[in-house]
């Protein structure tokens, strides 16, 4: 469904791309975690896939359509994005935020049909965010805000959901909750979910597949078991101080 062909992602056409060129694909219903160290290009890759910045080379195709050629509103009907950045907005309510998910489908007045409102309500309950209705978005805690943003993404009824390090501010139960919610959504709606994360343990636990950025532009792709087996996790993350143990599936301090 999602296909990256010789994709190079970056900011400068004359320099080598930050990530790529890579060939990857993803199937409907797949929950994919993108891992890599800081600066490996996770956000750059995700922004390029989401069509928020142009590909330096190659292309991203969703259901056979090249993303760079899509008009903004069409793209927004297919791809929903959730970011880690905290946005503040005067007087914005939870309901307003979720309704924004329907915007790619409404007319110029942005009038919502009963159908649209149903989708919004359903999205809120899927994300266990129904209790926040009527509250100011700025009043919510980090975890609550992320749930509302995910509800907004669900309300967008996309084919592809791109979420950039959205679990960064959450505690462990919050992270587990959000990641299993996303996995359920991928399964239930047959959509492809791409989540970049620093949370190695949980990602290895919950992801169907991992895209592992090695920091030199290369990406290894596979199931968690395959990547651990091949020692790819260690190659991407090991430092003199910590090494990844394939046996125990976690990092260990290098002993004296």
């Amino acid at each position, binding site marked *: 469904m999602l296909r990256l062909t010789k994709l190079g992602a970056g900011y400068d056409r004359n320099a080598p791309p930050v990530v790529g060129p890579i060939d990857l694909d993803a199937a409907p219903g797949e929950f994919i975690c993108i891992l890599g160290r800081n600066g490996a290009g996770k956000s750059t890759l995700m922004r390029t896939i989401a069509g928020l910045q142009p590909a330096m080379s190659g292309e991203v195709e969703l259901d056979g359509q090249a993303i760079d050629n899509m008009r903004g509103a069409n793209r927004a009907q297919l791809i929903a994005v959730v*970011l880690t950045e905290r946005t503040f907005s005067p007087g914005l309510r939870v309901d307003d935020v979720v309704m*924004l998910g329907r915007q790619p489908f409404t007319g110029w007045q942005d009038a919502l049909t009963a159908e649209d409102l149903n989708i919004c309500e359903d999205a809120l309950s899927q994300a266990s965010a129904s209790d926040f209705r009527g509250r100011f978005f700025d009043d919510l805690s980090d975890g609550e805000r992320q749930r509302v943003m995910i509800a907004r993404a669900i309300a967008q009824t996309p084919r592809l959901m791109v979420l950039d390090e959205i679990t960064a501010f959450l505690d462990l139960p919050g992270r587990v909750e959000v990641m299993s919610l996303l996995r359920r959504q991928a399964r239930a709606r047959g959509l492809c979910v791409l989540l970049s994360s620093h949370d190695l343990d949980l990602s290895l636990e919950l992801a169907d597949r991992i895209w592992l950025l090695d920091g030199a532009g290369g990406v290894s792709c596979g199931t968690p078991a395959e990547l651990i087996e091949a020692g790819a996790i260690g190659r991407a993350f090991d430092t003199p101080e910590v090494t990844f143990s394939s046996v125990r599936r976690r990092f260990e301090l290098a002993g004296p």
Partner: protein
Amino acid sequence: MGARVTTSSLTLLVGLAALSLYALAFGQISLSFGDALSALAGLQGDELVSQIVLDIRLPRVLTAIIAGGALGIAGVLMQALFRNPVADAWSLGLLAGGQLGVALTVTAAAFAGPAAVSFLTVFSGPSITVAAAIGVALTAVFMLALGRKIGAITLLVVGLMIGFTAQGVTSVLLHFAARAGGRVYGGWSDASFAGVEAANLPWLAAPVLGGIALAVFTAKPLTSLLLGETYAKSLGVKVSSLRWLALAATVALVAPVVAFCGPVSFIGLIAPHFARALAGSARILPLLPLAALGGALLALMGDVIVHAPWEQHFLHLNAILAMVGAPIVILILVYSPTVKGWR
């Protein structure tokens, strides 16, 4: 949500109509509501009463309504565009920029000679609006660029300082312009709705109507900008063209107001907050009628108080707006949940 907006709009509209009638009837000379209404309908036998209502009071009331409405809508646009709860044409220095634009034009004409001055005098309506528009637009572009570098509250302080600077320069320029014989437009460092002649009302109203149309047109993408640029982009919005459109709408709304009424303070800043509270939402389109009607109501209230039958004429519009507006802004800054995150 729709019902709330409709009810609130109708309530505001009734309030505005009632206050307009009051403003037409009462002042230095008190008339009955019946007299005022019959004068409005053109059925008034008494020539003097008819003159007071139609020639003196009606242009002032219409000016207050148009200017207040324009500032309210511009406030909604600017608060979304700057993503800043205390942004408005006055607080970010756009009005002062517009005044400076007019002052520079008048001064240039004064030094260019009598032909330029008489041109300005004959075409005073359009020419000062255009001059103000240039000043407003330049200030707005500058503040937008600055707004990307500094926080919302800092931007407010900078905007107010720019306002002071531009107003200082304006008063100096107009002093010399008047000495050089170009007294086209000397008398407005204070805001007032009373200086607009009936003949100039179209010059005030036409750009405002254009601005309202643009505001309605940009309301949907502006709503998505409330979540920030990246989200707006991900929802299919072309952010840079949206920014120019919203800016053009703001200039069209604000320039004629500053050209004809001077730097009307606070209305554009607080009307959007009332509108959001009434609507229970921050979606832009429903806010537009509420902010327009609320702004018009505030403006007319201020004007009614200024023109109440005092012993002598002593009150300035901005003094009233400041007494009402400044404490409200303080309350917004300190308590309102809508500025959480900016504190």
